[in-house]
C-alpha cells in the first residue's frame, strides 16, 4: 500500500519534470495529464472516492483545454531555456525551501495518523459521529460540503461564476474586435 503510494508519487514527479522540460508543447500537456491522473489514483488509495471521481473528470476537461492551446502550433518548439543567473536563483530558492521542509518534516503528523486524532477540538470527529444523524446524508463529504460548510460552497460557486465570466469576457467578440491589437484601448475602460 505505502509502496504503491510512493511509486505513484514518483510517477507524478517524473511526469511533472517531463512536462516542464520537454520541448514540444503537446507532449508537455500530455505529461501534465499524467500528473492529474496519477493524483486521481492516489486519491483512490487514500480512501477518497469523491475526490478520485472529481479529479479524473476535471483532468479530462483540463486536458481538452490545454490541448486546445497547443493544437494550432503544429509541433513548434518552446525555444531555448532562460539565461543562467535566473535558473540558479530559482534553484537556490527551491533548495532553501527543500532544506527548511526537511527540518519541518519531523514535526508533521506521521503518515497514516490523521490530524483530527491529535487535536480534540478538530471538527472532523463531530462531523463523523453526528453527520448522519444531523444531516441524514450517508456521504459525509457531501454532508460537510452542502450542510455544515455550505458557505464555502457558496463562495466556490461565486468563484466559478466569476472565472467563467472572465473567460467569456476575454474571448467575446466585442473585446476581440474592438481592441484587436490594442493595449491602449483596454486601458481606457
Amino acid at each position: 500500500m505505502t509502496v504503491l503510494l510512493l511509486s505513484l508519487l514518483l510517477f507524478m514527479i517524473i511526469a511533472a519534470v517531463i512536462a516542464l522540460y520537454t520541448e514540444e508543447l503537446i507532449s508537455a500537456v500530455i505529461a501534465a495529464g499524467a500528473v492529474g491522473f496519477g493524483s486521481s489514483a492516489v486519491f483512490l488509495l487514500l480512501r477518497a472516492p469523491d475526490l478520485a471521481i472529481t479529479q479524473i473528470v476535471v483532468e479530462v476537461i483540463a486536458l481538452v483545454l490545454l490541448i486546445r492551446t497547443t493544437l494550432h502550433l503544429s509541433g513548434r518548439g518552446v525555444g531555448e531555456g532562460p539565461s543562467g543567473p535566473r535558473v540558479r536563483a530559482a534553484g537556490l530558492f527551491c533548495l532553501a525551501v527543500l532544506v527548511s521542509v526537511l527540518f519541518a518534516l519531523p514535526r508533521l503528523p506521521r503518515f497514516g495518523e490523521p490530524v483530527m486524532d491529535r487535536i480534540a477540538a478538530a471538527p472532523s470527529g463531530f462531523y463523523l459521529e453526528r453527520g448522519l444523524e444531523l444531516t441524514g446524508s450517508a456521504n459525509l463529504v457531501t454532508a460537510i460540503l452542502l450542510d455544515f460548510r455550505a458557505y464555502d460552497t457558496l463562495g466556490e460557486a461565486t468563484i466559478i461564476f466569476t472565472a467563467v465570466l472572465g473567460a467569456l469576457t476575454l474571448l467575446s467578440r466585442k473585446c476581440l474586435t474592438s481592441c484587436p491589437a490594442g493595449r491602449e484601448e483596454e486601458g481606457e475602460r
Partner: protein
Amino acid sequence: MSPVYLLVFVLFLVGVFGLLTRRNLVKLIISVAVIEAAVNLFLVLAGYRREGIAPIMTEQHHRAEEFAARAVDPFPQAMVLTSIVIGLSLLALLVGISLRLYHIYGTYDLSEIRKAAREEDR
C-alpha cells in the same frame, strides 16, 4: 517521518521551479496545475488513517462511534473537492488569457511578449 510527505513537497517544488524558470505560458499553466495537485495531495494525506475506510456510511457501517474510529477524515476531502473544481475554472481563465495573448502577439513566449509590448509603447 515518512517519505510520502517528502515526495509531495518535491512535487510542489518541481511546480515552483517551473513557475520561476519557464517562459512559455502553457508551461506556466502546467506548473500551476502541478502545484495545485501537490497541495491537494498534502491536505488529503493529513487526513488519511492507516487501514481506514472511506467517509461514506453504508448499511453495514452506520454505528457512529465505530465508524468515527475507522473512517478517514472527511473534512480535508470536502475542502479539496472545492479546490479541484476551482482549479478547473482557474485553468479555464488562464487558458483564456493565454489564448488572448497569442491572438494579439502571435506567441506564447513571455519574453517575446514583453519585448513586443515594450516596442508598442514606444
